[in-house]
């Protein structure tokens, strides 16, 4: 028994680090059925859950194999991912591209699938890069969704609002909305939705390259550039709906649907899943406004979701066969037919049935000079979850003390990024 195993064994009781994994292991039969692929799913919301079910059924019909989906609550899945991958993971699991995938690849918890990528076509180089760590592929991208400023077309028409292009126009619009009793929707009880606004202001004000190296821990959070982001953000604060820290994104999405709020910085599925089907054509968006003409609206935040194989996968052949199929345009079409809140990644996907919103989203992303993944996917997960959630919530609660906030983030960043890893 190695030292590592010994300590891990001791930790079982200490923090129940692997206890649930052990418990779930009891339920699993030994070995694993070669004709069955298990998929760990974080798609717990009804719309994606149904769409995934359709996609897997299509695969079952085509291949004659069985796909067993284990769906867990979206947030629980994310929080338990570390234990999940070290315990008894499913053969294939859903996860995110970029830094969050690379982090697990670096730790040796993922299975390399470069051979599967060899058979792919229709993926851009940018997508391949998002799926790659140290020259090897680990990720099959499935769909993405852009972040933008979403609103109801009909509300804009009835009130005579115009989609703003620049920050000044944006603030003027927000001010008007606030006066009209339909303030800007805002929520951060979940801790992450407000990160999108930070990302966009930073990319518009300081450019994508600065944002990326800030996320990588290479820039100082006490830099004036970062303080400017918070100061700029504060201009928008008075026009937000009150009580953001007690509101979930679902509630904010519903307030947009009920015409109680005028617009919101969201990812496409957020308003999409909160609007009844008959009203989805009324959703529209505009790109986050320009702040510095030098960076214009070049960068777009568009997180990519997809599939990976855990190192401990039991049915590797089955997993790879499934991934091979999931990388085809047909597989994406099957999914998107039932989930109109996302956009296909494969060039060969059928866009003729896209809604106006999906078409516009595809255009927004294809016209982007840079694509970011979202704060909690672009930086170390321990930094995003233990430092930034609290920092941004503090800022929302008290937007005045930017200096103190930035100093605190920087001090914590230093300890986290300098702690030995591996």
């Amino acid at each position, binding site marked *: 028994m190695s030292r590592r195993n010994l300590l891990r064994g001791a930790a079982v009781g200490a*923090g129940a*680090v692997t206890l649930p994994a052990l418990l779930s292991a009891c339920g699993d039969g030994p070995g694993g059925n070669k004709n069955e692929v298990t998929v760990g799913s974080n798609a717990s919301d009804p719309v994606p859950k149904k769409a995934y079910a359709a996609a897997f059924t299509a695969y079952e019909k085509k291949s004659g194999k069985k796909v067993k989906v284990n769906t867990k609550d979206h947030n629980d899945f994310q929080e338990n991912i*570390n234990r999940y991958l070290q315990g008894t993971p499913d053969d294939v699991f859903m996860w995110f591209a970029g830094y969050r995938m690379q982090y697990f690849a670096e730790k040796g918890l993922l299975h390399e699938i470069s051979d599967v990528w060899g058979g792919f076509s229709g993926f851009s180089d940018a997508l391949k890069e998002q799926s790659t760590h140290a020259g090897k592929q680990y990720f099959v991208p499935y769909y993405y969704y852009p972040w933008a400023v979403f609103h109801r077309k009909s509300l804009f028409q009835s009130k005579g609002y115009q989609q703003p292009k620049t920050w000044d126009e944006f603030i003027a619009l927000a001010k008007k909305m606030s006066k009209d009793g339909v303030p800007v929707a805002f929520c951060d009880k979940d801790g992450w939705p407000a990160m999108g606004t930070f990302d966009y202001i930073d990319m518009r004000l300081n450019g994508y390259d600065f944002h990326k190296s800030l996320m990588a821990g290479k820039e100082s959070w006490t830099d004036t550039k970062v303080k400017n982001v918070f100061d700029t953000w504060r201009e928008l604060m008075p026009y937000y709906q009150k*009580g953001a820290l007690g*509101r979930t994104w679902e509630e904010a999405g519903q307030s947009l649907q009920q015409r109680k709020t005028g617009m919101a910085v969201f990812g496409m599925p957020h308003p999409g899943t909160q609007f009844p089907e008959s009203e989805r054509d009324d959703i529209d968006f505009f790109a986050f406004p320009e702040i510095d003409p030098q960076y214009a609206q070049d960068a777009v935040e568009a997180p990519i979701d997809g599939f990976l194989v855990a190192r401990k996968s039991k049915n590797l052949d089955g997993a790879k066969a499934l991934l091979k199929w999931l990388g085809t345009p047909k597989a994406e079409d099957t999914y998107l037919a039932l989930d109109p809140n996302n956009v296909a990644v494969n060039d060969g996907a059928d866009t003729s049935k896209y809604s106006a919103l999906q078409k516009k989203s595809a255009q927004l992303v294809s016209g982007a000079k840079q694509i970011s993944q979202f704060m909690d996917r672009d930086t170390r997960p321990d930094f995003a979850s*233990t430092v930034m959630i609290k920092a941004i919530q503090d800022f929302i609660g008290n937007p005045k003390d930017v200096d103190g906030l930035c100093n*605190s983030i920087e001090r914590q960043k230093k300890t986290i990024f300098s702690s030995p890893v*591996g």
Partner: protein
Amino acid sequence: MRRFTRRDVVVLGVLLGIPILLDIVIIWGPTLASIGLSFTSWDGVGDIHWVGGDNYKNMVENYPVFWPAVRHNILWLLFLGLIATPFGLFLAVLIDRGVRFSRFYQSTIYLPVVLSLAIVGFMAQLILGTDQGVINTILNNHDNPVDWLGDSHINLWMMMIAASWRHTGYVMILYLAGLKSVDPQLKEAAAIDGANERQTFFRVVFPTLRPVNVIVGVITVIEALRAFDIVYAVNKGRNGLELLSVLITDNIIGEASRIGFGSAIAVVLLTVSLGFIVTFLVQELRGARDR
């Protein structure tokens, strides 16, 4: 002393050995492991790096939620101990005196005890939600809703009240059982001696409740430490609801595996809990001896 037969030794060995083994594996092993890990940096996958007291230094100096969490832990203990528990005793006395509909009150006040604290948290959200909560709907204050759960000055108190809703009934039923067992002759004797109601209660009845007090004291401490359930259900224990147990979870569980750092917080929680438990036990044991 009689010599034990071999069989006795084996039986004793098994009967004592298994509990001792379990005690070591389940209690002492993890405790010592936590203390050991608190001096290391470990991401849960790779190697373990010795970092000395860095975690503790970092926790006290750089971790902005640490002190609020300590404060909140103590507040929970004080709130339950000084407000909710005495209130449960008060209700028990009222019902024991036979106010009208006392059986009805007894049942309704006890009812929430069957719920888990996490469920109480979900219910609290339905009642206190900013946009769709019952209270704000009744107040009809759409333009300027009270942010019961999001305002860090209010939400802790709301959660403590919600938890007390459940705790009070629990305490009440325990005291009620205790009060029923107090010999009525004691009260009569006190009345004959000229004691008024209040004196009878505090000088005669309450001291006889000593065994119940011990149980209620322990339960109050346990409930205060279990506050994790309710705050985690509400907003993952963030933004004003921080507790040491939440910080441990945040750091150890999840993608953010800072197991060494989380263990250091766990050691602090262990010290805080031991402090209360040891003081309490010493008091009680000393009290029992004096009697």
